[in-house]
């Protein structure tokens, strides 16, 4: 059997004295969409940064296709793995299409790559994210949600085998939230691209995610199919919120509905 696409074994990480990850295990195969859930500050972003090579784990092991992230050359790694982080640039005038085209960097040589291929990939990403109309607008002139879609488009344009996405739907309206998960599903089914998504959309994740990891207290509290993870007990333990979990009558997926606090 070939090495897992992404794996973490006993990963620990602390910021100064504050331990954020206290032994996290995760294994992800080709063409999987895995959702990372958990309350604010539980270490979802930290885990994604460790996978992307931005932070080294204090202990434990991380690997991308069987090798630690640090052992890859920058461009080589960027061709395998793309990241949509939480911060989006607005300080300098840059058109949406220029920004998206920056995703082609790891495929370009010192003096640029195939201009035709770059253009094609850029336009494909713009079409997928519904940004064709806005392609010549400045990043500073579009809404936060549109910028977030541009960041996703840049990651798609990067053409990597696995995408790490850190709360990519935070600023999106419900139409674009659904559209976002549809895009990931299409990328997975048509191109075999895997995605690890940190999110707070419990019900949408249940609809689209094959596997959910619920982080709590620096560890994986529950992992498995949406209906196995998203139970009132687990949600209460992780988030401290009372919910009911029933089935969406139309799709059969788990539906998580918060209950009003009675106190």
């Amino acid at each position, binding site marked *: 059997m070939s090495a897992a696409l992404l794996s973490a074994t006993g990963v620990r990480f602390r910021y100064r004295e504050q331990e954020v990850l206290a032994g996290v295990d995760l294994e992800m195969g080709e063409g999987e969409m895995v959702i990372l859930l958990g309350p604010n500050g539980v270490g979802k972003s930290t885990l994604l940064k460790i996978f992307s090579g931005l932070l080294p784990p204090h202990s434990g092991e991380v690997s991308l296709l069987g090798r630690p992230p640090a052992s890859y050359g920058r461009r080589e790694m960027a061709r395998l793995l793309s990241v949509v982080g939480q911060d989006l640039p607005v300080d300098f005038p840059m*058109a949406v299409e220029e920004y998206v085209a920056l995703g082609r960097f790891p495929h370009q040589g010192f003096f640029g790559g195939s201009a035709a291929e770059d253009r094609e990939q850029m336009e494909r990403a713009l079409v997928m994210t519904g940004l064709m109309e806005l392609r010549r607008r400045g990043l500073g002139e579009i809404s936060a949600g549109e910028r977030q879609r541009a960041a996703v488009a840049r990651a798609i344009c990067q053409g990597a085998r696995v995408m790490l996405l850190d709360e990519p739907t935070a600023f999106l309206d419900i139409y674009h939230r659904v559209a976002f998960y549809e895009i990931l599903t299409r990328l997975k089914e048509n191109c075999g691209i895997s995605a690890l998504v940190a999110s707070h959309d419990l019900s949408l994740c249940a609809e689209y995610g094959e596997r959910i990891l619920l982080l709590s207290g620096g560890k994986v509290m529950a992992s498995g199919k949406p209906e196995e993870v998203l139970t009132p007990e687990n949600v209460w333990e992780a988030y401290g919120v009372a919910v009911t979990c029933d089935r969406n009558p139309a799709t059969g997926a788990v539906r998580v509905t918060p209950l009003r606090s009675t106190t």
Partner: protein
Amino acid sequence: MRRTSPILAVLLGAFLGAIALSVSTGPTAVSLRQVVDGLTANGWRGIPSDTGARVVLTLRLPRALLGALVGGALSSSGVAFQALLRNPLADPYILGVSGGAAVGALAAFLLLPGDSFLPLPLCAFLGAALAASGVFLMARHRRGVSRERLILMGVVVGAFLNALIMLMVAFSPPGKIPGALYWLMGDLGLGTLPRVGVLLPYVAVGTGILFLLSRGLDLLLLGDEPAFTSGLPVEKVKTAVYLTASLLAGSVVAVSGLIGFVGLIVPHGARVLVGSGHRRLLPVAFLLGGTFLILADVLARTASPSGELPVGAVTALSGAPFFLYLLRRNGGKP
């Protein structure tokens, strides 16, 4: 993508026009015919004997070329520092280069015997290089160089060097100070041909390196983490950009003193024309900066009947209102 070629063509025209204007401006009128005749009389070898041709070839043309190199280099350096620090208010002097150069120049004036101008550019360059590398080394920590620390260290080192400058001025013999201060204010009158020759390789190498790094500069605008995950070796590129931009600024200061505002405003003007993509921005900023400084120098030479103004004063006087205009035009965003 915006159309760049017409903009480049217009700018190139303006650039050459500014050189022509600068060469033909002066107390004595010299015709092109005179210059060509002077050159052909010697078979294009050596300096012609005709006075008018000599003035043009040994004084005005080098001065125009120096203006082009200095303006272009300061603008390129400004573009690079703004991308490196992700701060539109950065300029080539922000990280201690100016203070270091001033201390070096003053030290040369005060400590070295005689009135020779020769060691002064070298000492200014050394001072700039020391200050810039000091700031860089102090801003480093375990995980590389952070932009915030760079700016903070630049400001602290700059303040320290300013204090040194005041001390040096206070403790120096009165006759020695004006020369150094006037030189520091920025002046292209020192533009004799050998100085153009000294500056040219630095500018060629520096702008060449920046151009090769232009995709890296684009990615640096996104921030360190996105640049890293997009495949850029961020720390290496930051170090290369820092050293190159400092080299450009330091070599310019050494040759022409401190000419302010060009490195701050010209990059903004260039961005209005072609956006932030550095492949287009760098050449456009170079041409725009060269044109701007040559024209400012023409103004500095002709504005006052009693003598030349320091070109640094002209750039700041015309640059500040222009910058305010840009700010207002873009709704508060430079």
